[in-house]
């Protein structure tokens, strides 16, 4: 088995550009503008040198001075005009790079939204949610940071260094080589210091997260801490983590304090070397005083961007690994693909037919599928339209997976499910979602009003339609107890409502679609007495005239169904009515016995 290969920097970049082609648009012209812009910064040292050499010459004894003011003015005027052009070019380059990269990153985000929404539910578990969110927020942010700071620095400083090095080589190639030779080790030193700086910042970030986590507990747990008079003890803990944060930050600033002076000292050495060699060679080698002075200024200009560029190298690494993670998400195959050539369901009755339905989890990278690990094996079954079906089985029996396959949240690995004679994967997704509605185990509500949560499925519905929906499932009495009615805010994940009340809203939401087939994933958590009554009533009302398939956790639900499917380790082992099954020896009667005994022990 081979370990998965980590893509290299260049490969990642090229794949990234491939994924977001707009990144490359117009980059050539932007580069050209950046070069022109950077060249403007070299103008001043060159003009000073020219002015000293040609305009401000002095006679040998230093008494008579021949100053050609007209020449100096002419040169300076030319330089000023060039500066204007260069500034405009620089401005345009920066603005173009920023706008192009932001619009490319917007495209990338939308692409990620779309892809992640299409991933199958297996890839959407609770553990992974945080990282999926991080991909579209912070990872795209690292790219944005890179383009607006790092990319910009590459563009402006890189161009500047190349131009300055070029001018230096033209002036005096041996002095230029001397400067480049002396500056080379600076890159190494800076990289070392920066690596330590990054480690120190990571440390302080962790300490900061600790501090915030502890403070959050002090705030959210305030009542508990007060009830047990433990506030002071926990306060001391927060102070301790605050001290650690201070220590780590202090360490980071100390390392940071070493960064700038190292550039400074290298600069002094390089300039000293230029001064020494220049003086030693004298005018015999064609060097002039003006050229040497100009060269000193150029040396400062050349060294300036090095520190910033090395910093950018690390930012580049961050951006590349962000891009790598994003590409990783984009490479996860999407869930069931939409039907390419959808078939319309004719007038046939909407019977559901399962033919040899088998399901395996998609093997992870490098894993080989174990043929004995089928979640569902060869399920064959026909459910006639209008039947109330309960699917029961122990945890891990495959009943939840069967629900997902029937809802087309996943496609069977082999075998086929059809509705009204049309295979599920040939039904247009929109048509399917109007015909078949799923009420999940933990019905999710958006942090908005009740009305907004209902309109999520029927955006154009009027208030009256929404209120009628409550009445239609016998929930008008509950609706009247809601403080603000449709305008009530349900809070995050519907936290302002109890678990049972969230299910009530989910049922009303499902009823708005008026589907022919209803798939109910029953909740495991218990619900308070009065809500339970309402739920049962609403469900009865809702299931009339439809096919209802309940993934049942409570056998009371099975007892009410027309037909019970019993799953055991992925096999359909029993199929019949509650009364038939409860009398026959088998999985169902065992389950029923243990359920009954656990519900009659109150004393």
């Amino acid at each position, binding site marked *: 088995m081979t370990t998965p290969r980590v893509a290299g920097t260049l490969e990642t970049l090229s794949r990234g550009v491939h994924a977001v082609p707009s990144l490359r648009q117009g980059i050539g012209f932007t580069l050209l503008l950046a070069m022109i812009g950077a060249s403007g910064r070299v103008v*001043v040292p060159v003009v000073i040198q020219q002015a000293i050499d040609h305009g401000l010459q002095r006679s*040998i004894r230093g008494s008579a*001075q021949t*100053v050609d*003011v007209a020449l*100096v003015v002419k040169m*300076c005027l030319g330089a000023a005009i060039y*500066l204007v052009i260069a500034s*405009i070019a*620089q*401005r345009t*380059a*920066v*603005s173009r790079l*920023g706008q192009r990269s932001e619009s490319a990153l*917007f495209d990338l985000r939308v692409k990620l*939204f*779309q892809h992640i929404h299409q991933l199958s539910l297996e890839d959407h578990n609770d553990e992974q949610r945080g990282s999926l969110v991080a991909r579209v927020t912070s990872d795209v942010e690292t790219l*944005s940071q890179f383009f607006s700071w790092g990319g910009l620095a590459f563009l402006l400083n890189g161009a500047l260094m190349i131009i300055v090095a070029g001018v230096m080589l033209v002036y005096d190639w041996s002095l230029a080589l001397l400067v480049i030779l002396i500056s080379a080790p600076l890159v190494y030193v800076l990289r070392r210091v920066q690596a330590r700086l990054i480690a120190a910042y990571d440390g302080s970030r962790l300490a900061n997260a600790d501090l915030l986590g502890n*403070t959050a507990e002090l*705030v959210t*747990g305030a*009542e*508990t801490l007060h*009830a*047990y008079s*433990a*506030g002071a003890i926990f*306060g001391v803990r927060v102070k301790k983590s605050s001290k650690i944060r201070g220590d780590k*930050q*202090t360490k*980071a*600033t*100390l390392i*940071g*304090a070493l960064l700038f002076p190292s550039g400074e*000292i290298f600069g002094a050495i390089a*300039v*000293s070397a230029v*001064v*020494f060699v220049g*003086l*030693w060679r*004298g*005018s015999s080698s064609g060097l002039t*005083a003006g050229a*040497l002075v100009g060269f000193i200024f150029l040396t*400062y200009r050349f060294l300036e961007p090095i520190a910033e560029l090395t910093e950018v190298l690390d930012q580049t690494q961050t951006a590349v690994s962000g891009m790598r993670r994003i590409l990783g998400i984009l490479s996860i195959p999407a869930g069931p693909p939409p039907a390419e050539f959808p078939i319309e369901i004719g007038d046939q009755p909407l019977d559901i037919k399962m033919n040899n339905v088998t399901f395996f989890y998609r093997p992870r990278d490098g894993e080989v599928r174990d043929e004995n690990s089928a979640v569902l094996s060869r399920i064959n079954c026909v459910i006639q339209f209008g039947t109330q079906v309960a699917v029961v089985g122990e945890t891990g029996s495959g009943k939840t997976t069967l629900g997902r396959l029937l809802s087309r*949240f996943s496609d069977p690995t082999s075998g086929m499910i059809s509705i009204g004679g049309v295979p599920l994967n040939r039904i247009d997704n929109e048509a399917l979602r109007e015909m078949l*509605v799923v009420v999940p185990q933990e019905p*999710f509500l958006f942090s908005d009003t009740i009305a907004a949560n209902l309109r999520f*499925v029927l955006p154009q519905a009027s208030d009256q339609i929404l209120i009628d929906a409550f009445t239609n499932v016998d929930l008008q009495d509950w609706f009247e107890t809601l403080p603000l009615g449709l305008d009530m805010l349900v809070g995050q994940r519907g936290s302002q409502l109890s678990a049972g009340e969230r299910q009530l809203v989910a049922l009303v939401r499902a009823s708005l679609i008026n589907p022919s087939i209803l798939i109910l994933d029953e909740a495991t958590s*218990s619900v308070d*007495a*009065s809500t339970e*009554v309402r739920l049962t009533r609403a469900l009865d009302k809702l299931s009339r005239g439809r096919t209802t398939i309940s993934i049942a956790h409570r056998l009371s639900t099975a007892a009410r169904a027309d037909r019970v499917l019993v799953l055991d380790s992925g096999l359909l082992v029993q199929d019949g009515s509650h009364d038939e099954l409860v009398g026959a020896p088998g999985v169902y009667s065992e389950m029923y016995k243990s359920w009954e005994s656990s519900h*009659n*022990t*109150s*004393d």
Partner: protein
Amino acid sequence: MHDHSSTSGRFRRATTLIRSLVTYHPGLFAISMAGAMVFAVCTVGSSWLLRWIIDEVIIRRFDTNTFSISQTLTAVGLLIGLSLIRACGVIVRRSFAGRAQWRTAQSLTDEVVDVLVKQPPQWHRRQSTGELLTRAGVDVEASVAVMAPLPYASSVILMMAIAAVGLISTDTALGLAATAVFPALIGLNVLYQRRVDKWFDIAQGELGLLSAAVHESFEGVTVVKAFGAENRETERLAIIASRVQNARVEAIRLRSLFEAALDFVPNVTNICLVVGGAFRVRSGDLSVGELASFIYMFTLLVFPLRLIGYALSEMPRSQAGFDRIQSLRRSPIFDDPRSLFTHGSSSLVLDSVSIGYDDTNILFRNVSISFSARSFTAIVGYTGSGKSTFVESLAGITPIFSGSVSTKDQLTSFVFQEPFLFGTSVRDNVCLGSNFSDEEVEWALRIAEADFVQGLPQGFDTIIGERGVGLSGGQRQRIALARAVIRRPSVLILDDTTSALDPNTEVKVLRNIKSGLPGSTVIAVASRPSLIGMADQIMFFDQGSIYGPTTHVELLIQNVSYRSLMQAYEEPQEFEDDSL
């Protein structure tokens, strides 16, 4: 005129802010300032040195065409020596500024923590969690952010002063012209930071919204898929993402303009200096070296000027953060309701107690009850009948409006409906900082039927919560129960604490409490018949009235409302009446 006064007002506020920040750790700050001054003097010195090298060493060398090794070595030695001193100045300045900044942050955090600890729950309930976290996190960091660039900014001002004197004394006209550009550049920088920061802040805010919306959309992916809303959701998120994009682009557009201007102004000034210098050199008022040093000085100051702009633009944010922390510190500390409890011989006595927030909002009036030791009281009522507020008042978590509460001792344990567990070990969550032996912890966990703890990877040393093992609602409730019983309280109050347990476990836990804490008064809010069945007496809360304490049978006979509530419990749960 008005503008001027507001500017001076702002200046006064800024100096007050800096003074208050510096007083936390004045020594550290002073050392940093000393380093900054060394840096400033050396920077100006290096520009003079350069002038001397150009005039006296380089030009003389080329004029006379003689190479003086001693003069050359002096020049090189001075260059390197001065830059070493300057580097030391920088290291001292930056490291001590950082130290002062983060030690001050620590002191500010401590102050916030003290307030958070001292204020009782009734204060905490009026605050938003997010706001309080912002005080301890973002606001502290923003307050001290201005400290880091402060020594640097001071050194730049010193440099400018020395440079201005130097420039003007070398050549009055040119010097005055060059000096005039400094304030203009500072103004441009401040304007730049403020304008651009506004857009970056907007982008940051939109990014926060995007992050929340994305999280919600992914969390609800089942619903999104179930109703085929994938494309609609993508569109919705794209709209928010485009707002992030627009704010960023706006910031970039402004930035590109200002960056170009900030490069352009000093460069053009330099060129003007060359022209002006040419005239002065011709008239013999200025040497070529002096001119070069002029220009070098200018280049040296341009970059620091940018940081001054940065420091000044940080000022409003620091100010706002610091002000918010100060107003939190100055907010009056509320009374701990428990400090008003009196002490008597009975375990818990209410004497004409009224419960409510103010005159117009009284839930219960003049309640007088004495709970005897060893009694087990169940509190029953419809949702919203004030059960939680009532029991919280008994525990001193919510203040009473009038009347008096008397307890035998301070030992009341309260278990919340939704228990709060800390992200530490199970043991730590049970002990909450008090010292209890292993045996006591085991005993408490046993009473709470929390035997699942033994199955955790490190037993009761297992870390729970976000960074550890996730627990179910029922498991969390049992750990919170163990936390209450380990203190062997004289009064144990359970606010619907056993709701997430299955009925069998609930009954076992309650039996354990009765036998394990035989002397304790137990008061429990009940929403399930199994708990009502365990109680000695019932209090029924209905529409502002309290019925009882009396027996279940008595209430069934006398109270219609109670009877219908019991019927609602019976139907789905197949609650058996004869079990009572």
